[in-house]
């Protein structure tokens, strides 16, 4: 038997049309013969040969340890030769066999999908939780500097009057005291005011809670600010911003590993990151809402204030169509984000109001009577 191909000596780029023949099966000796003049070009042992594994129908390379190469399209021929020479070795082209097996492909698709889903939904959030709640306090303290960066990039100083600010601080101080007395409180929340963007509030990893001027001016009752404040406390308590940054980092590294070298299609590579981010974000908002509602209930504040402020905020967003979403990591990107991002990362206000209704019906003792 012989295999037709192309012989390259590894010194120049001149290829010679040639064939590979088996000389002795016992000795595992092979020979490469020129097709032009039937001269022997090279005699060698199988052990001198490195045969590339089969991949699709791409040509197969046989590299000699002295640098010469025999290249052929006859993948089947090479596999047959290998089976002859190494009858009890592992099947030649094992990966190729796997890649052609319909069952293996179907199994791979399903298992991979399930695996990705499990990692995204359970694995990554848990890992991020663990890291966020076990972060050394030295590191947490460093997040103080977030504020300086935000002041440089996004925020302007607040233009509210000192009286107004003090009123709000006085209003919220008791709730801060009460929050600190809760078990497992890690950080002392501190309230601050900034302007430079639409109505919004932030809970930074350092414990700072920021109200924007626009938010303060938007509300019609101060208890609406209390509702927002509790929502932000909920973020703080669950270390949402920290967890989200950690999750983003894990997802980015995982995408790099799994999809790998996607030079031409990097945009597509960001889709899973975006999807994962969106779902985490909505979960976090839900958790923060739940915390806010529980606290309001305990403090005897009417949940309608929560409904009102959510509705007001969502109207504000659709009116002005330019607001930065609630995150401080990778600031550069955030400045450009518009309504869609907010709508995707936050549950819609109707959904949130429904959530309040649901919460009320479960938690209030007189629900039955109503």
């Amino acid at each position, binding site marked *: 038997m012989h295999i*037709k*191909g*192309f012989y*390259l000596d*590894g*010194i*120049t*780029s*001149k*290829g010679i*049309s040639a064939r590979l023949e088996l000389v002795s099966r016992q000795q595992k000796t092979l020979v490469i013969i020129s097709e032009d003049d039937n001269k022997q070009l090279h005699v060698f042992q199988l052990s001198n040969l490195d045969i*590339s594994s089969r*991949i*699709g*129908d*791409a*040509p197969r*390379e046989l590299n000699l340890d002295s*640098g*010469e190469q025999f*290249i*052929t*399209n*006859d993948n089947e021929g090479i596999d047959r030769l290998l089976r002859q020479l190494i009858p009890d070795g592992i099947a030649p082209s094992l*990966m190729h066999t*796997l*890649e052609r097996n319909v069952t*293996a*492909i179907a199994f*791979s*698709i399903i298992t*991979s999908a399930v*695996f990705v889903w499990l990692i995204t939904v359970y694995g990554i959030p848990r890992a991020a939780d663990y890291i966020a709640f076990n972060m050394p306090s*030295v590191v947490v303290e*460093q*997040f103080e500097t977030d504020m300086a960066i935000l002041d440089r990039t996004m925020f302007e100083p607040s233009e509210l009057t000192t009286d107004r600010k003090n009123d709000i601080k006085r209003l919220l101080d008791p709730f801060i005291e009460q929050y600190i007395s809760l078990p497992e409180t890690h950080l002392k929340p501190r309230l601050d005011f900034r302007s430079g963007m639409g109505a919004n509030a932030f809970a930074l990893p350092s414990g700072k809670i920021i109200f924007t001027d626009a938010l303060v001016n938007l509300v019609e009752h101060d208890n609406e600010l209390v509702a927002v404040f509790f929502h932000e406390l909920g973020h703080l308590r669950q270390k949402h911003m920290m967890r989200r*940054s950690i999750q983003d*980092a894990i997802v980015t*590294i*995982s995408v*790099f*590993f*799994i*999809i*790998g*070298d*996607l*030079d*031409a*299609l990097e*945009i*597509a590579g960001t*889709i*899973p990151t975006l999807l994962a981010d969106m779902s985490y974000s909505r979960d976090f908002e839900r958790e923060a809402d739940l915390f806010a509602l529980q606290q309001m209930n305990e403090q005897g504040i009417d949940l309608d204030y929560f409904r009102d402020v959510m509705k007001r905020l969502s109207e504000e967003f659709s009116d*002005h*169509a*330019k607001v930065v979403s609630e995150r401080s990591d990778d600031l550069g990107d955030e400045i*450009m984000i*518009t*309504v869609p991002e907010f709508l995707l990362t936050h549950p819609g206000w109707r959904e949130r109001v429904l959530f309040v209704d649901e919460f009320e019906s479960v938690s209030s003792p007189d629900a039955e009577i109503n």
Partner: protein
Amino acid sequence: MAQLESDLKSNDETTQTESKRVLPFEFRGDGTEYFKIWIVNIFLTLITLGIYSAWATVRNNRYFYGNTFVDGTSFSYLAKPLQILKGRIIAVVVFTLFVGLAGAFPVAGAILYLVLGFAAPYIYNQSLAFKMRNTSYKNIQFRFNGDYGEAFGVLVIWPFLGLISLGLLYPFVLLKMHQYRMNQTAYGTTQFVFSAQVKSYYKIFGIGVGILLGLLAFGMGVLNGLGLMSPNGAAVIAGFVAYIFVATYFTVAFTNLVFISTSLKEHGFNATLTLKGYVKVVLINMLLIVITLGLYLPAAKVRIMKYITSCIELHERGSLDDFIAAEKESVSALGEQLGDVFDFSV
């Protein structure tokens, strides 16, 4: 098989005379075939918690190199999975430490970024050296002979000049980059020669800016005319579309320019990518990727590769048979992997 034989025959006939052939590049991969390789790669990467990714990278690259043909012969990818795995593990550890430290300690972070700035030219060189060293054609390896000083100029000093000139020097920045990259690359012992003029770069940038402004004005006009959204929203959307379009134009125009301006001995290249053809492939790809929830990704990669190679040709002047191999050398995969995680887009 018949393909290779006929290729060989034509090769034999033409090497006798001083030939002047036009040899098209061709990608013989197939979307379905690559999908299977890709999904098995992903499956094995997942169940081995990422370890298999190095083998996956090698199989992916071997598929793409091995199916890219010119003059009847395909390219080969030579890197071994274990080298890539080692480099990748170190790169990911370095990256994680870097991001962690830079995020947690801003002062240390500033120093780290400075260190990264000075390491970047070295990483860039190592990365290209690894890529070229592991690419071969007709059993002759490519080479990239990097030089730290020149790389520093191209990656740090020129971009800085571009910045302080408010972008007016960007065409120069890109020209220097392409010059450095192509002139330091060799096939065996033969250096590539890059001969583009800066005026070609200014022309492309000028057209790009023209397209950008035109699309922006047109898009905002239409969107505001429809009155569906606020002027700010219209500006963002028109800006996004215009940005994508211009980025695509630059890809097409610069790919063509780089090939046309590159020669290897007397041999030259030609590339005739068109904006229309490229955009069509990219849009269809994006659409199908979204519809199939990402399963079309491998076929998309094949499709774009087929399009690009179909637009490139080698203009043979004299013989392609007398290129000589360079001395053996080995390059660690670490630089390439660092380049990947820090996204230097080499």
